[in-house]
């Protein structure tokens, strides 16, 4: 994982408050999408224990969103919570497509591998950059909790790979291009082409260096964790290399 040097400017500067508000807005909207995804997942499983687990995970995401909202309120940071965010809407709809097909495995790949890898990695980077603040500590704590979701998925998906090697890899590839393309566009190195409708003003990417972050490293670290997770599941390394290098940059 690549590290960045945190600038740690005073929390009272306008620039710092603005970037913190945008980062928190993205996190809150992402957690809410995660919450609704897990809730939808209950409809794709018959096993009652799995259903209960889905609800538990949905509640976990709800708590994360609530914690981010609370820390924003405490610091008087104006966050934007919307169900119309350009990229988060696409993520929600894509998940809904797989859920409507009752494809539990595809949903797990999307939520617990792709989305959680992005969350764990980006929260960790933001947390380290803001480590001296309560906001930073919250990001670090939630990053740790989200790691459990990734762990939860790995055994399930390893078993799926064992059952049908080629079929499973084809499915991961489809979900990858469906979902990871959206995240890759959202985290492209230049400002988003379509406004995300979550950032309050202009695209936050240009302002990330003011808190010691940059989008290339944030995105790169997230891709790194994603690839490592696919490696652990057992996807051939040259497949994931092909998939990742074909994403928009």
């Amino acid at each position, binding site marked *: 994982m*690549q590290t960045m040097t945190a600038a740690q400017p005073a929390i009272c500067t306008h620039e710092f408050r603005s970037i913190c508000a945008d980062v928190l807005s993205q996190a809150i909207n992402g957690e809410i999408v995660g919450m609704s995804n897990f809730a939808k997942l209950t409809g794709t499983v018959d096993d009652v224990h799995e259903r209960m687990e889905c609800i538990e995970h949905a509640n976990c995401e709800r708590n994360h969103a609530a914690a981010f909202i609370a820390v924003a309120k405490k610091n008087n940071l104006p966050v934007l919570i919307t169900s119309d965010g350009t990229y988060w809407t696409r993520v929600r709809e894509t998940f809904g497509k797989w859920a409507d097909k009752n494809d539990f495995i595809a949903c797990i790949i999307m939520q617990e591998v792709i989305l959680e890898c992005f969350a764990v990695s980006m929260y960790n980077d933001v947390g380290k950059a803001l480590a001296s603040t309560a906001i930073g500590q919250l990001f670090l704590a939630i990053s740790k909790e989200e790691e459990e979701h990734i762990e939860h998925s790995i055994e399930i998906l390893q078993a799926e790979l064992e059952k049908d090697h080629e079929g499973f890899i084809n499915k991961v590839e489809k979900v990858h291009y469906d979902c990871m393309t959206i995240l890759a566009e959202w985290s492209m*190195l230049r400002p988003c082409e379509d406004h995300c409708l979550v950032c309050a003003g202009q695209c936050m990417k240009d302002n990330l260096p003011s808190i010691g972050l940059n989008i*290339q490293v944030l995105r*790169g*670290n997230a*891709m*790194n964790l994603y*690839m*490592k997770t*696919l*490696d652990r*599941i*057992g*996807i*051939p*390394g*040259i*497949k*994931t*290399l*092909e998939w*990742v*290098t*074909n994403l928009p*940059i």
Partner: protein
Amino acid sequence: MGYQPADIAFALIGHQDCWKKITGFVDFFSKSPQGLSAEKVAQVYSFIPPRVLFDVVVQSVIGQRVKGCYIETFISPDELAPRHWKKNIEKVKAAAACARKLGAGVASLGGFTSIVLEGRNDALNDGAFTKFTTGNSLTAAFIVKALEKACIKFDRQLADLQLLVIGATGDIGSACVEYFAGKVKNLLLCARQNATLQQHVLALQKKGLQAEASTDLATLLPQADLIIAIASSGIPNFNPLLCRKDVIICDAGYPRNLVLEFGNDFKDRLFYGGMGVIKGGYTFSPAVHHNLYKFPINNVAHGCMLEGIVLALEKLYTPFSAGRGNITPDKIEQIYLMAQKHGITEAPFFNGLNAWQPPRL
């Protein structure tokens, strides 16, 4: 690290020395119809975790075949400076974990990656099945044997010549110094760390050998009849105008140490050292060979990589080269003989332009 080829006898762990090669192999694996721009590749490259890229099958001239694989570390060629070492060492350790998971008997660490085994603590050879070697002994063997051959080609007597080793305190550099000690007229040692350099010279002088050292390359270049460049990084202060007209240069660095115009007199006097050739041949699967490992001569490979292959052919699963300063002339002869038995020997002379065309004698 999901790729699980069966029966892996050896693993080769490495990194690329230029973006052209990287773009070539990333293009191959991405299967992108329009190809990826170097800029795009550079944005993601160093974030990719180490992974197996292809299988390698090597044929020995005595009928044996061994199968191994190549593990790319995805260390960026722009990030070889000391400030990136911590990150790079983590990558090498992750690549080593891949080799262990595959159950390779022996793994060679190519180029920069050997740094992990050259420190005081050997973090890799900790009792696990897979043994790790830097491959430096066979690299040193190919350097010294090729240089001796070059002297014969140019009808030069070693005993009359002064040998300059640039990077003389490194693992391979010091092995070359020790090998040629007493064989050449004078040893000229150049390195960045003056204290270590002086220790080396003192040790040679105590043995009654003629040797001098300097951190200033310009003072040594005019004296040198033979040059081995084996520094850990490029040598930007190498001034070819200071060299003798009849100098023979072996550039054995990875990445290559010297950037010389081949339109000049060096085109038939500079060769890339530390390279070997497998007479029985080798194959890559998938066949990424032309995108990644292209030389003017067929079946050429780096000595460090070939050491792992030779050890696998010999079923000698041992950390043959580990630590720093442990390569003796005896070890050089031992690994060289093992390699020769399987038809693996120093490569014919070539450089960045083409295969050497030495003058007719």
